[in-house]
């Protein structure tokens, strides 16, 4: 069943066209990697999908579980199960991590018609999720991302993902700034969350993440279009030959099923 369908998506920022006709279908349970050189439009794609301000959609549509995603507010998308693991998680001084986690979980639960979790049930739940990313309980009481190392920030993103249990997880350069141990931890966390009902779109510049989180499909994004699609072998090709060839590549014929 289709989770996400992007059709001929065009988007501008400050008058400049960044996305120039993206087509992509993600089915339930699939993991798609989107790779590409700097400036290809990778982060723009994740921002447009999650509703960040400042982008103008000039053409195309995005259907998420049968709904027009682009008409929804960012928080409405989030509550329906669209999650973005940020490339640069934001610091919020004075707000404890546990407070944000609880507020986020309750916002999602409320949307689902569920009661808010009480303090004890919540703590039990969050503790079990923390083991997934090997986070210490003291993280709960520190201010959101404040003074966190790069690896801690990314693990915190995965913790939020694990807690909120999204349907569609978009991961924006989750591997950037991670050493190999942190990369392993983060990848194990993500792999544990893979399921037949959950889809992933992983945006990355480098192939190495895909050694740990093996995608079902790999797409190459260049100058605002997907210029090539394939399976995980495509990523290895890219690793060898770099991105220089993609500029000359022909328009893609079709999509992986």
């Amino acid at each position, binding site marked *: 069943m289709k989770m996400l369908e992007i059709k001929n998506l065009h988007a501008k920022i400050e008058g400049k066209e960044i996305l120039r006709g993206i087509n992509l279908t993600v089915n339930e349970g699939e993991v798609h990697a989107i790779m590409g050189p700097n400036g290809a439009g990778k982060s723009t794609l994740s921002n447009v999908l*999650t*509703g*960040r*301000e*400042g982008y103008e959609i000039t053409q195309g549509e995005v259907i998420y579980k049968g709904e027009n995603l682009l008409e929804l*507010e*960012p*928080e409405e998308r*989030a*509550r329906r199960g669209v*999650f*973005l693991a*940020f490339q*640069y*998680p*934001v610091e*919020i*001084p*004075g*707000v404890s991590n546990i*407070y*944000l986690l609880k*507020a*986020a979980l309750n*916002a*999602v639960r409320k*949307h689902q018609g569920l009661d808010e979790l009480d303090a004890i049930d919540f703590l039990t739940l969050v503790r079990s999720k923390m083991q997934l990313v090997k986070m210490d309980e003291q993280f709960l009481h520190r*201010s959101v991302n404040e003074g966190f190392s790069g690896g801690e920030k990314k693990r915190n993103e995965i913790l*939020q993902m694990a807690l*909120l249990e999204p349907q569609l997880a978009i991961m924006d350069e989750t591997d950037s700034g991670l050493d190999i141990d942190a990369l392993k931890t983060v990848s194990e966390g993500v792999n544990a969350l893979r399921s037949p009902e959950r889809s992933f779109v992983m945006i990355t510049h480098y192939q190495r993440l895909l050694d740990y989180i093996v995608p079902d499909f790999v797409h190459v994004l260049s100058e605002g279009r997907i210029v090539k699609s394939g399976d995980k072998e495509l990523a290895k090709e890219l690793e060898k030959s770099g991105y220089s060839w993609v500029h000359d590549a022909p328009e893609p014929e079709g999509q992986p099923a």
Partner: protein
Amino acid sequence: MNDQTQQLEAITQKEYKAGFFTDIESDSLPPGLSEDVVRQISLIKGEPEFMLEWRLKAYRHWLTMETPEWAHVHYPEIDYQAVSYYSAPKKKTDGPKSLDEVDPELLRTYEKLGVPLDERARLAGVAVDAVFDSVSVSNTFKDKLAEQGILFMPISEAIQEHPELIKKYLGSVVPQKDNYYAALNSAVFTDGSFVYIPKGVRCPMELSTYFRINAANTGQFERTLIIADDDSYVSYLEGCTAPMRDENQLHAAVVELVAMDRAEIKYSTVQNWYPGDENGKGGIYNFVTKRAACRGESSKVSWTQVETGSAITWKYPSVVLQGDNSIGEFYSVAVTNNMQQADTGTKMIHLGKNTSSTIISKGISAGRSSNAYRGLVRIGPNAENARNYTECDSLLMGDKCAAHTFPYIEVKNPTAQVEHEASTSKISEDQLFYCKQRGLDVEDSVSMIVNGFCKQVIRELPMEFAVEAQNLLGLSLEGSVG
């Protein structure tokens, strides 16, 4: 203006939620101010002669003074003859003996405000001296406190029952001639709270007073005096909210605190008076003089305030550090929205040796408001090894508000150590988007980020007050980020 700014403005423009008016028969003096009015007030209160003389001295001096113009606030000239200087709920044969005898309308008003005046108060462990307009209606826990020799009563009662303490301390921190509004208050104050903690006593509960201005056109001039004798401790809470009225209402309170040797006073305020509508119509003028004297050695006074209300705030809770090793603290959150104006801060006057002071000020401006921090740190020539740390942060929401910082530092002793840090920031779009992407709506996101910004101050508040303050911050800023 982008969507986000618009959203923020929409959130900050919610209506004032405590806006209701209780219809109780008031016993008021007609508008106007004269020696006769001062005499009448003193007469109504049945005051001893010395008190009348004290008031008249203040009044006569007030006549010679001019309205201070230095604050960064603007408002039309106040017609002091148009204000009524006394308003009291009508007495029913010598006043109520118990809650059953209190006007049920009044009780309902407190209920709406969540004032724990009745049994809930006992459960919550809060003693409330509720000032309704200008007369203290009810005192709770007075007997329990009296067992330890603690005096907690309306100041009008203290004037009758403990004239020796009044003579000794009233005006000893804020003299009648101190400033324009203090002089006015000294002449016409009608009530307020009086607290005396005897030597060596640690007050077993948070003392609390809720002030509420009710009748139209009635200025409220409370006078509060708290004395903590040697080795004592008291924590005092003051929370305010007023019903919605159209005309500007003048509020000129005076609060005096005296801390003797090794005594500690913690004074916390949550102020939510009617700020006026979004166009600046109506709202309270809050011109307050609050000052503490750390008179004894190793004494300590902390002011903590969360100020979200009033059309205009003019307020500088200060500490005079006379005793050696004494400590002064000022923790403040001031929120202005719509057309509100605030000029607030503190003065730390270091006179004794090894005195230290801390100032943490958080200003949040939204709408078209103006928020100024004004602070003075003065180190006197004899204040060896005095220290001050000041941190002054401003948060802006939207692009039509203003934040100002006016720090004054006067150092007359070379051993002093004075630090000042200041920052101005905006709620970033990144922070908001991050919260929204986690499913929070804009209002909850703003409230959360603002509460984070104010955490250093909020955590200084007693627990039950902290919760109220957090809600208030969210409420006050509904509709305003950018």
